[in-house]
């Protein structure tokens, strides 16, 4: 199978029209010494039926979160994806399109991006949004680079309570960009504001905190923003968009840039990607913002339309002076988020956040009442929390799997001081019965 419509007759007639005698003649400018003199060593081609069976067999070697009851979060969440999202992002007019360079023939995607930008501004209470970035980790790195451009400073301060993979990605980007990264510690389960205050100086471009943090805690974002602003640094808030139905949004506590992972907004977990990096910011930062952005405009008859705009920031115009090298982003995930947020609406987004909050707190109360299981801090939390376990958390995970439960993430690899602890996530999908059965299984293991 190769999906090529040309027949042998087409090919010979086309070669004649071109004025060559063979395909080989068209390839004659490729030097012999670099021509592959054999066939590629790849498995034999497959019919569609054989391929479908093969893919099914490969998929069945995995145990899915549908087969198990999942309490695993840590940056990828088992939220419900309504049918409308899957159906609408499966419209092939959307998914088989390229980036909407020709606006008049791409109004559907451009309007959807414009709606996405508006929805994200509303949710984060910020002024402007870009059209998306790769994921939460790269969004943090891009925000740091953006803050350095804006302030002309070369140092960022980030809390250790930010997702370890986001910090690792930031370090990789920063090292190559010549940006210094300082990490500030935790006290009582949240970022230590006093230590942060000592680290931040007139050299600091931005302070980055995540709320809820990787460990689930609602962080003192307002205080951190004050610390940053006192030194003329920007404050970057990395947030869970689902939490914003109930938690204060970045715009309410003085964030200059808000970023985060938007997977929860209608994208499946898909073993880690594709996800949705989002970035919203204050109005006056817009010309330093990375990535695509859609804007409203008009045609000669005054009809409203949408177009990719402020392109003077971007790589295809500005080349090495661009605000970022990003080109393809995650437009289809942004479309999923737009559909998902419109599906939820004003009341739904609050109800959903409340459901996560209620179920997570019920689970927390039940688990920490079990002998040997203890809370790690008294910090407020949203849908995820840390519990110390009486036996090593890796053994807890293995034990839970025997009850078809996917337990929380053992934290030792990322935080040695939490070597005896597990990070448990509870979304709206978990029922009381499932939480109770988790508790029964934990009790049996202790």
């Amino acid at each position, binding site marked *: 199978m190769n999906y090529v419509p040309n027949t042998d007759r087409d090919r010979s007639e086309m070669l004649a029209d071109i004025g060559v005698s063979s395909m080989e003649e*068209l390839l004659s400018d490729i030097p012999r010494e670099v021509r592959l003199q054999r066939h590629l060593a790849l498995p034999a081609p497959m019919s569609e039926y054989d391929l479908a069976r093969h893919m099914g067999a490969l998929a069945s070697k995995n145990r899915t979160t549908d087969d198990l009851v999942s309490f695993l979060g840590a940056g990828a969440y088992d939220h419900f994806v309504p049918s409308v999202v899957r159906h609408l992002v499966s419209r092939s007019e959307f998914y088989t399109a390229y980036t909407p360079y020709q606006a*008049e023939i791409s109004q559907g995607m451009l309007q959807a991006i414009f709606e996405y930008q508006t929805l994200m501004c509303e*949710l984060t209470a910020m002024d402007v949004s870009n059209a998306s970035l790769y994921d939460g980790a790269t969004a943090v790195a891009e925000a740091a680079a953006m803050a350095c451009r804006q302030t002309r400073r070369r140092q960022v301060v980030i809390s250790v309570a930010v997702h370890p993979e986001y910090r690792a990605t930031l370090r990789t980007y920063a090292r190559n960009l010549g940006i210094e990264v300082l990490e500030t510690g935790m006290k009582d389960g949240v970022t230590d504001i006093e230590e942060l205050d000592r680290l931040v100086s007139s050299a600091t471009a931005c302070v980055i905190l995540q709320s809820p943090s990787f460990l689930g805690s609602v962080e003192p974002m307002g205080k951190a923003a004050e610390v940053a602003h006192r030194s003329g640094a920007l404050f970057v808030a990395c947030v869970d968009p689902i939490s914003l139905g109930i938690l204060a949004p970045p715009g309410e506590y003085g964030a200059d840039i808000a970023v985060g992972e938007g997977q929860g907004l209608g994208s499946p977990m898909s073993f880690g*990607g594709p996800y949705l990096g989002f970035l919203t910011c204050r109005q006056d930062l817009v010309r330093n913002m990375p990535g695509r952005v859609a804007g409203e405009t008009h045609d*000669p008859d005054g009809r409203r339309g949408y177009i990719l705009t402020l392109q003077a920031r971007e*790589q295809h115009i500005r080349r090495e002076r661009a605000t970022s090298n990003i080109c393809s982003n995650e437009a289809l995930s942004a*479309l999923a988020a*737009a559909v998902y947020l419109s599906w939820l609406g004003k009341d739904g987004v609050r109800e959903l956040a409340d459901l996560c909050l209620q179920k997570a707190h019920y689970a927390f109360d039940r688990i920490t009442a079990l002998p040997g299981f203890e809370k790690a801090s008294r910090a407020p939390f949203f849908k995820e929390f840390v519990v110390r376990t009486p036996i090593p958390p890796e053994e807890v995970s293995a034990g839970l799997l025997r009850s078809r439960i996917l337990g929380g993430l053992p934290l030792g690899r990322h935080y040695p001081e939490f070597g005896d602890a597990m990070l448990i996530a509870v979304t709206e999908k978990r029922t009381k019965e499932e939480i109770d059965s988790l508790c029964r299984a934990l009790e049996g293991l202790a």
Partner: protein
Amino acid sequence: MTMPLIFERSEAGRRAYSLPDCDVPRKDATELLPGWALRKRAADLPEVSEVDLVRHYTKLSQRNHGVDVGFYPLGSCTMKYNPKVNEDAAALPGFNALHPYQPEELVQGALELMYELGRYLCEIGGMDEATLQPAAGAHGELTGLMIIKAYHESRGDGAKRTKVIVPDSAHGTNPASAAFCGYKVVEVKSDGRGGVDLDSLRAAMSDEVAALMLTNPNTLGLFDENIVEIAKIVHGAGGLLYYDGANMNAIMGIARPGDMGFDVLHFNLHKTFSTPHGGGGPGSGPVAVKKTLAPFLPVPVVEKKDGKFVLDYARPQSIGKVKAFYGNFNVMVKAYAYIRALGAKGLREASENAVLNANYLMRKLAPYYHLPYDRHCKHEFVLSGEYQLASGVHTGDIAKMLLDYGFHAPTVYFPLIVKEAIMVEPTETESRDTLDAFVDAMIGIAQLAEKDPEALHTAPHKMVVGRLDDVTAARRPVLRWRPNKQTNAG
């Protein structure tokens, strides 16, 4: 007719959502969270019914052109057909409903797929080891350059090698990625045949150069015949060769970047390997390298140990992570399925037909449009709107007129070294009938340019909107909707 925004369809009290009941004892949020942590003003999201929601986005989809709608000859983007069976495979719960932190023994199928895909890509590119972590082509470029930097640093050469060379025909992402990696960009000229000018390259080369970034065939669609000499010049001065895989669709099974002397390459799975581009992503930009560079790949790398697939983080020289988790896995599933469907023979046939279709179109259009480099092209070619300029018609006008014929426009005004450039990439999945219809449209437009240039200046005429004002959009940006028009400044 103005298409309403989803916000303009909102009616207080309407709803599409349905959420599970709260089956645990409910407490007031103020009991569970401190007051300062709570949201004060609710997010003003639209309130619509499910049917309104579905109709809204269905209507938007009908205002959008994709490969499934018609021809999409966007140069350098390889808008080939996206096989449906791949979509079905990627939607299987066995791939979709997997958490990235599930224990390895529960995701052996996913890891096997990633391991095998990495091996296939290495075979196709002539490389030794691969990472699937980068999320797009530009992300792959950045990752590849970081690997190059780490390599030079490991040899004590990092501080000295501060420059990256890119040809003047390069994609904009090349210099942008180099700058984002902390490199100074040096541009080299193209020669009269469209390849890298060897004298310029020799003059630019020194022990301060970390790498040369090259696309081959280049953005003119021309194979650089001097590639072996180019590699010799760059390697001779201790630099490395980076291959931008955007144009890989020309050479699968015909020639391999690794055999041409390239040390690092990125693939665009959303171009060459048929995964849909999603209207601007998700893409996937795996990077493959020669053995000497393998220690620097991002972590984790999927390895096979004792018949089991594992995620290897124990790579002390790794550049680290460039993204959370392992990359755009769902896109990898589709690319894997594509390679398995085609096999070696199918991939080679795909490339051959891509080259055939491009040359056919080029020869048919050459009498009507200026062809600045008159030689066999590979998978794409570049025309110039220079003839039409004489009657005051610009390439942008030609592009807009094409939309009225039901075709997406080619890439225009790129590469920068061709005046009024029109870059056409038909791909192998278009039939001769489609190509002929496109030729007819282009000839019609060329004739119209002479007879009635005004008709082109005002194109398009048949789209849902007329030509949109991009100058006002950039000068007075409106980047979000607001209920009160007076405050609608973006």
